């Protein structure tokens, strides 16, 4: 039975505590959560049917989404309803819909569970968006490394197609929506929406300069709406219960529930769908607390492109856009990387800067040259050859990358450097002076 054991994977953790409203993982408690039958049993695809058969106006759908306070779950937190209103209404030709399941930022693994446990809600969410925005073709771009999920999604699509939820003339109307799965093959940058679009077109994933935005020039040069998996998956619930109900689940400026991917030094790493605004301490408790009973040292609350936080700061914070903003970081994609007292921040930063160096697409100068520079300087420090001036140099180089690149990877690469040095400067100084880590002595 060795084979069985080795296939064990992290499951989303659901404890029925108060503060959890299952929206995107609605099917989680069911036996066959990913099946069409399960989803239908829970009222799945009824919202899509209602909108189409009742010919509900696009503007009404958009308004519900606006009222819901749903903000893009891909990291930037842009209000989804507002984004939808940018799609040109009249366009002579095909409009496209794209779902971004390319999560590849360290610590982010929520969309994988949506596909594993509730793919049909994503499909319905996309179909509703397609109906609303007049898009007739959609693509879900799935991170290459999660191959099993790509296949799950392909089968879910086949089921939905068979059942008439996607395809031509939905519910006997003249609404068409052809939805396809496409896969990445190992490039973090393709999470950036225009790189993702280039990749769908069969090119290198190099971000496009914006403007023009995808809403006017997207897939194959056509108007395109891009949203994150979790964003689309929230839509059916919003339309079933009303935008206000969704808003009420969360707090001001942060409607709904949010999937937090908790990884690193916690007892029970995994995804937690919790209501926005939950205090960090509660979420940490849900995840079983800090690993091996150790002391919390730092948390990256939203993925490495968000600033690292000292334990004191995060212990006070609530998990929502404003809460984390006030505490000096941001919600990002809700990817909490928890670090306990044994973590060497210099080495952690080295690994993160290697990531951005490795993943830079290479087209724009500051990112291509700067990320390598930053990584090499940090590596020099961990090799015991650091100089005190290096810390200012690192900050300076990072500032020179930030805000001067085509896409936000440049900013993302600068954030950890700036925040790690800012919050843990003594550790860096120690490393430079002693040629070894203050934490593990190695």
């Amino acid at each position: 039975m060795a084979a069985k054991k080795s296939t064990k994977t992290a499951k989303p953790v659901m404890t029925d505590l108060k503060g959890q409203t299952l929206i995107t993982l609605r099917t989680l408690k069911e036996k066959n959560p990913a099946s069409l039958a399960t989803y239908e049993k829970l009222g799945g695809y009824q919202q899509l049917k209602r909108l189409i058969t009742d010919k509900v106006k696009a503007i009404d759908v958009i308004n519900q989404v606006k009222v819901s306070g749903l903000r893009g779950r891909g990291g930037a937190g842009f209000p989804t309803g507002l984004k939808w209103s940018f799609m040109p209404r009249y366009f002579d030709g095909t409009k496209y819909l794209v779902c971004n399941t390319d999560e590849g930022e360290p610590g982010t693994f929520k969309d994988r569970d949506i596909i594993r446990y509730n793919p049909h809600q994503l499909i319905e969410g996309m179909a509703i968006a397609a109906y609303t925005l007049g898009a007739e073709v959609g693509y879900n771009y799935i991170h290459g490394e999660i191959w099993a999920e790509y296949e799950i999604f392909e089968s879910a699509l086949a089921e939905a197609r068979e059942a008439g939820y996607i395809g031509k003339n939905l519910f006997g109307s003249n609404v068409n929506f052809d939805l396809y799965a496409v896969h990445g093959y190992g490039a973090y940058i393709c999470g950036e929406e225009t790189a993702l679009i280039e990749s769908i077109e069969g090119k290198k994933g190099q971000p496009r300069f914006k403007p023009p935005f995808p809403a006017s020039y997207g897939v194959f040069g056509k108007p395109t709406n891009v949203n994150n998996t979790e964003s689309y998956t929230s839509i059916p619930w919003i339309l079933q219960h009303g935008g206000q109900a969704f808003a009420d689940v969360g707090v001001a400026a942060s409607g709904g529930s949010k999937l937090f991917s908790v990884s690193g030094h916690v007892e029970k790493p995994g995804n937690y769908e919790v209501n926005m605004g939950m205090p960090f301490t509660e979420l940490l408790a849900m995840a079983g607390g800090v690993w091996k009973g150790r002391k919390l040292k730092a948390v990256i609350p939203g993925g490495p492109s968000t600033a690292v936080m000292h334990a004191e700061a995060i212990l006070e914070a609530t998990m929502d856009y404003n809460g984390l903003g006030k505490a000096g970081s941001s919600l990002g994609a809700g990817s909490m990387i928890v670090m306990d007292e044994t973590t060497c921040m210099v080495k952690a930063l080295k690994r993160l800067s290697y990531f951005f160096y490795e993943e830079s697409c290479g087209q724009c100068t500051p990112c291509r040259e700067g990320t390598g520079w930053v990584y090499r300087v940090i590596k020099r420090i961990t090799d015991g050859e650091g100089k005190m001036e290096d810390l200012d140099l690192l900050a300076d180089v990072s500032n020179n990358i930030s805000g001067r690149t085509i896409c936000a990877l440049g900013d993302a690469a600068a954030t950890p450097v700036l925040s790690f040095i800012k919050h843990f400067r003594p550790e860096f100084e120690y490393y430079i002076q002693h040629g070894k880590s203050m934490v593990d002595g190695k």
Partner: protein
Amino acid sequence: MLSKESIEKIEYELTKYPEDQRRAAVMSALRIVQTEKGWLSPESISDVAQYLGIPEIAALEVATFYNMYDLEPVGEHKITICTNISCMLRNSDEIVEHLQKKLGVGFNEVTKDGKFCLKEGECMGACGGAPLMSVNNTKMHEFLTVEKVDEILKELE
């Protein structure tokens, strides 16, 4: 030459795109050919380019941009282990060390018997199961321990 099976699969991928956008299928086509042949030789890349009617260099650009394409032989089983932050915090370095010792190869090397190749991976979007590794780009193994790695290797032998 592309095999009949590969062509069938590529044709399926092509149904996803407008007719005048054959290029869009290049990522899948490269993946399909790589899966069949084990790696992407220049000939395979040319075949794909020709089949889709795009310049060879455009196919090469794609093949070299994405990590999961292998432009050199990777043996029977390619093991990609994530060493990124979440995995690192869960001691992926121990797993790496174990793998390297056990297989007797470093990163990007193939074992003498041609069975295994070890690669260092970036985030695979499954950090909840850290530490983890992927075998042949398709099979993810999570919550790795030294013992579990041994089991997996045994199965693959």
